[in-house]
């Protein structure tokens, strides 16, 4: 389980070092990965008359900040960004906290029905979520939350994946002896959770938090269904911007840049942890 903190198994395989063609292939893949993002930046930095040119414009122009200002002036992107930060932030905090709490119980405490409940929790990770959107929509209507961001926050507050992930991690990361010793000293389980488990869970919590944040930030379908164009998340605002009522395509592509930048920044800073998380998850399968 220490793989999360040490994600790269630095095994250098003798005789399998990378040659020219390996680098060439990887660089080609990299260019393919980057190009669409680069191109959106190019369009976002042009004025509207530069789009749809033949041959296409491929170098950035000088209008990016002007276009960004126009997006915030003429659309609800400011509000959308704020909404997205509120939604993603509260969902992340909640998922990490409740997952750690439940993971602690499943990993370290003995109680009746533990095995069955754990299996039930894991089984729910395979349930296709959007299949329940109609009742969820009805539910939000009953609660009076249609068009309000609570409708997007509350369904995201817990995830079965998070519980599974933290259970896996805490099983190995917190020695049973430490908890036993704590008990001997008269600590309640809540104190154990607070003073022993939470600090120990930090590396996994960071990875889970990152994933959750990115997922919440990029979530589109449910906000589209339940929110309104006047009070959207950033992805919804972007899809509305692209739906044809604006005549200015640089604005649309500027919107994609704005919607993507926060995630790319997070990724640039914490990409190492994210990759470690994916790879450690894969090892456990």
């Amino acid at each position, binding site marked *: 389980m220490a793989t999360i903190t040490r994600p790269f198994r630095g095994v250098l395989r003798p005789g399998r070092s990378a040659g020219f063609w390996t680098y060439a292939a*990887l660089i080609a893949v990299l260019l393919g990965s980057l190009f669409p993002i680069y191109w959106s930046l190019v369009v976002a930095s042009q004025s509207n008359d530069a789009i749809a040119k033949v041959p296409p414009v491929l170098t950035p122009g000088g209008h990016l900040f002007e276009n960004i200002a126009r997006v915030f002036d003429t659309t609800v992107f400011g509000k959308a960004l704020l909404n997205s930060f509120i939604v993603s932030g509260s969902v992340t905090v909640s998922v990490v906290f409740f997952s750690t709490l439940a993971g602690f119980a499943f990993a370290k405490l003995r*109680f009746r029905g533990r095995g069955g409940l754990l299996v039930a929790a894991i089984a729910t990770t395979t349930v296709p979520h959007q299949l*329940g959107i109609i009742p969820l929509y009805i539910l939000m209507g009953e609660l009076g939350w249609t068009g309000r961001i609570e409708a997007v926050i509350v369904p995201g507050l817990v995830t079965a994946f998070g519980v599974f992930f933290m259970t896996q991690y805490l099983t190995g990361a917190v020695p049973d002896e430490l908890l036993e010793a704590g008990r001997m000293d008269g600590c*309640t389980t809540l104190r154990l959770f607070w003073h022993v488990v939470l600090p120990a869970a930090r590396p996994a919590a960071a990875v889970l938090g990152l994933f959750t944040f990115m997922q919440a930030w990029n979530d589109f379908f449910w906000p589209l269904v339940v929110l309104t164009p006047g009070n959207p998340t950033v*992805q919804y605002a972007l899809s509305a911007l692209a739906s044809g009522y604006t005549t200015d395509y640089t604005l649309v592509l500027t919107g994609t840049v704005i919607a993507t930048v926060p995630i790319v920044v997070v*990724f640039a800073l914490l990409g190492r942890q*994210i990759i470690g998380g994916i790879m450690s998850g894969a090892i456990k399968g």
Partner: protein
Amino acid sequence: MTSARTRPRRRWAYVLDVKGSPYIYIAPFFLLFGAVGLFPLLYTAYVSMTDWNLLETTREWVGLENYAELIGDAYFWNSLVNTVSIWLLSTVPQLLGALFIAHMLNRSLRARTFFRMGVLLPNVTSIVAVTIIFAQLFGRDFGMVNWLIGLAGLDPIDWQAGTLSSHIAISLIVIWRWTGYNALIYLAAMQAIPNHLYEAATIDGAGQATQFWKITIPMLRPTIIFTAVVSTIGGFQIIAEPLLFQSGTGNPTGGSDRQFQTVGLYLYEQGFGRYEFGYASAIAWTLCLIIVVMAVVNFSITRRIKSG
């Protein structure tokens, strides 16, 4: 500090704490999940047996009528065929590409983290942004892809209008976003393969290609099954890409002839275009069933191929 065992009152509290508190710790998850995850799913089953339309005030129990209608609904079958087609077109190249990239990454590389981050980058960008960008690249009159095709001396393609061409374009969006992610999963599995297997093979005179096919692929079998099943579950629910690929044209029909309407998009059209909640719920449950069947079929196929 005195030991807990010496005081009866403390012991009682201790037992309650140890036996009872776990339920409190898992309760938030189960309560919330029950309310926003499980309950809606079950309630979908009920709604699917009514003629519930959001815009109408009356609703009646109709039993399995919606399902019967669905079986005779040509648009539903059309969407299912499209879904399977897009799923195949996206999954197969995606997983093969991921294997290839993982194989490249699984060498002693300079700037290793840089390359890994590079291949994962598409996965963290939003579907909405990416689909908008791709829709523009695949534009009929001024898209960059058609410009390149024109340079090659070929006629431009109306990507959105054609059935196969629209499926290819949508599949490319999926491939672009998910290949790197799967590559990292394969890479992790490759690194878990014990080195001595390769060493022994080298001694036996097996070349790199032989080693890849005889050692790497068989050892990756569980991981390949895992990714195939996950991409089945994801691929059958695809909505956002086809929805946004035709953005601006209004209704979520997936083109003028529904040529790229997936089951998910048909669910959306019925549920939130026409607000036929009953019928849409029947689609949801049917889709759920199809996904389960496909995941199982997929599981057994990938298992057989690799062990054969």
